């Protein structure tokens, strides 16, 4: 789809530059030039990397941050100490939007600050960013080698495999192709599929959990029973069987099957949260003010769960990647090169898993997957600490 790639393209660069004009313009208009320029660069990079997919969210975030710098000391009518008749409670829609945007920007800045303060979390973020940057921008610099390169056989060598050398930093694989090119091009599908799987599972869990918690009664019982049922079945063996019965031919199908088996834990947590939040005073107050179901969900209940959902989302990405790599390793999903997990599978099929010369080809994807998983773990640990200050002293 045009503008929705997950690799760097020129079109994305233009999209990013256009989106970046908004924060830049606001920054220039209100004299916050540094913030404006940083916002522009952020949008440019995000757009360049993912087109609309990265550009739109980044534009909103960057604009919010710039606005939050410019939006200082506007008297909030609800916390004003001035006499009641002097305060202007009227607020146009635009003013409301700007206030919300500034709040979002402030939140983002505070979040970034606490992330920078937390060493392991920052390390995890750097790790994630490293892999994202390599998979997104790497293809611009490293050309993909898809065909066997028989001409690279060293005289007297038994195979095309080569350990790392100056010319090929990660060595050559069993067909004489540069491992580096496969590493750079092979992470994208794995990461995107894992994120998709986690996203679908999270959406199912949040929707079903909220319904169960809010509606209650018979529907709640049925939904909870289904969740408990899926929780009881060991999910990885079932995933194996389903993958073979359904003959999945697309990564998206795999993501859906994974999501269907992995939403219950979060759903139960969301349901419990909704049930407990329902009884809180501020929700009761909102109900007494007759603010409507949608308002209560979006303004009162959801913001209190978002941290938990975010942490769980990243955790699910990790589990999804674990399952997908395992499925590929066992040869149960269709294999497409280039892919990190396919590299391990092929290494095993070709019987070179334990060949010292294949170290580059085998170790590279293993270490990449291990580091990516560790980065996610460290990042979620610190996210938990940021969202839940009580944990800071504990863990």
């Amino acid at each position: 789809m045009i503008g929705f790639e997950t690799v760097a393209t020129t079109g994305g660069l233009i999209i990013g530059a256009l989106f970046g004009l908004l924060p830049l313009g606001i920054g220039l208009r209100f004299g916050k030039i540094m913030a404006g320029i940083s916002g522009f660069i952020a949008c440019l990079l995000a757009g360049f990397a993912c087109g609309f997919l990265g550009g739109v969210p980044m534009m909103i975030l960057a604009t919010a941050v710039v606005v939050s710098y410019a939006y200082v000391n506007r008297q909030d009518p609800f916390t004003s100490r001035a006499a009641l008749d002097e305060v202007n409670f009227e607020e146009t829609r635009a003013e409301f939007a700007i206030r919300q945007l500034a709040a979002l920007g402030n939140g983002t800045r505070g979040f970034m600050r606490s992330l920078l303060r937390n060493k392991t979390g920052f390390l995890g973020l750097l790790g994630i960013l490293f892999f994202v940057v390599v998979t997104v921008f790497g293809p611009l610099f490293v050309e993909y080698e898809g065909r066997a390169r028989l001409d690279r056989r060293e005289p007297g060598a038994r195979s095309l495999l080569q350990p790392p050398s100056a010319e090929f930093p990660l060595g050559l694989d069993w067909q004489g192709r540069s491992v580096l090119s496969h590493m750079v091009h092979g992470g994208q599908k794995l990461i995107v599929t894992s994120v998709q799987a986690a996203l679908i599972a999270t959406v199912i869990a949040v929707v079903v959990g909220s319904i169960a918690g809010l509606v209650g009664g018979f529907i709640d019982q049925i939904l909870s029973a289904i969740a408990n049922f899926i929780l009881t079945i060991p999910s990885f063996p079932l995933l194996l069987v389903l993958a073979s019965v359904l003959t999945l031919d697309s990564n998206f199908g795999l993501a859906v099957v994974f999501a269907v088996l992995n939403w219950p834990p979060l759903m139960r947590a969301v349901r419990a949260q909704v049930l407990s939040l329902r009884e809180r005073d501020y929700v009761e107050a909102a109900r007494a003010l007759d603010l409507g179901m949608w308002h209560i969900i979006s303004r009162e209940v959801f913001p209190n769960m978002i941290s938990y959902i975010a942490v769980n989302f990243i955790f699910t990405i990790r589990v999804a990647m674990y399952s997908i790599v395992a499925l590929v390793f066992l040869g149960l999903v269709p294999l497409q090169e280039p892919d990190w997990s396919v590299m391990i599978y092929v290494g095993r099929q070709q019987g070179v898993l334990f060949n010292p010369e294949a170290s580059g080809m085998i170790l590279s994807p293993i270490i990449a997957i291990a580091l990516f998983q560790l980065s996610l773990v460290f990042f979620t640990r610190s996210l938990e600490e940021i969202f839940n200050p009580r944990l800071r002293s504990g863990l």
Partner: protein
Amino acid sequence: MSTRTRADAPVPSAPSAANGKRQQGILRRLRSNYTFNVLMQGLVTIWAVTTFTFFLIRLMPGNPVQVKIDQLMNTQNVTYEQALAIAAGLFEFDPNEPVIQQYVNYLGKLLTGDLGVSITSAGTPVLDQILRFLPWTLFCVGLSLVISFTFGIILGLLMAFNRGSFLDNVLTGFASVTAGLPDYIVALLILLIFGVQLQWFQVGEFRGGVNPNIAPGFTLDYLGSVLKHAFLPVLVYVLGSIGSWMLAMKSSTISTLGEDYITVAQARGLSERRVLTAYVGRNAMLPLLTRLAISVGFVVSGAVVIEEFFQYPGLGRALYRAIPSRDYTTMQGVFLVVTSAVVLANIASDLVLGWLDPRVRVGKGGEK
């Protein structure tokens, strides 16, 4: 005063209504009985999983019966009717019966412990196969669970007691890293670093469950071989799970340390050692026991990837081997065993926890 209170008390209802109430009372008491509820839930889950796998296999597009028929027609040159008859014999059902009837028959056989006959290795009852593979998995994964739970508890306690010390930092780092790595990645790294690069051992020596050249029996040779072959898988399982035990025990201990009864125990002048073991340690372990019971349930399913990787003859590998050959009766059987194990473990954990911690019993079963 007292007479007035008695007069205000609700008048007992009429005899006929009381009789009806007593009859309802038995049912209601059964329903609110903790043990009964836990058992019923478990039975319903097992039945649901059995039904689910049965219909998954019978009604899915490209269902195994159809696949087997196509396969027979292509490979053995038989007509559709003959292929159907052979397939029906293999799957042990009468194709002319409606699916519901087949389902009832299947359930009836299950009740007598008959899991059917393997499709690929014709004539071998699935139950025999499962019983052949199950001990290996139980031994290997069970051993590693015991090791990682014991050491995880001890190390977690140590970490919590010496919070912020050098030891705590090192152990927390170790636990976070090992808990974050997928088990098969650990397995690959161990083999590649110590087996291939450093040449500390021959990778091939560790394949399988036991050296096939040694006669089975309670001889030193045989048991040694079993232990040697289990060493690497156990190491991988332990490394993969000890980190989460350590971290869970640490946080549980830390929250227990803040409880009032610990302060009271200290105020009574009990020795520190006594407070730490009898008051902190035992209470901190409670939440972990539930997790232990659940892990025991998942022991049976083994780790498919690890067992396949080390060619370990366990149940997970049996399941994986059944997939490409579309041996659905085996799959069904393995699934039934695996899920039953999880359900039984859940029941055990609920009952044990209810016994150890009366708050659970009252909270869950006694609610009005």
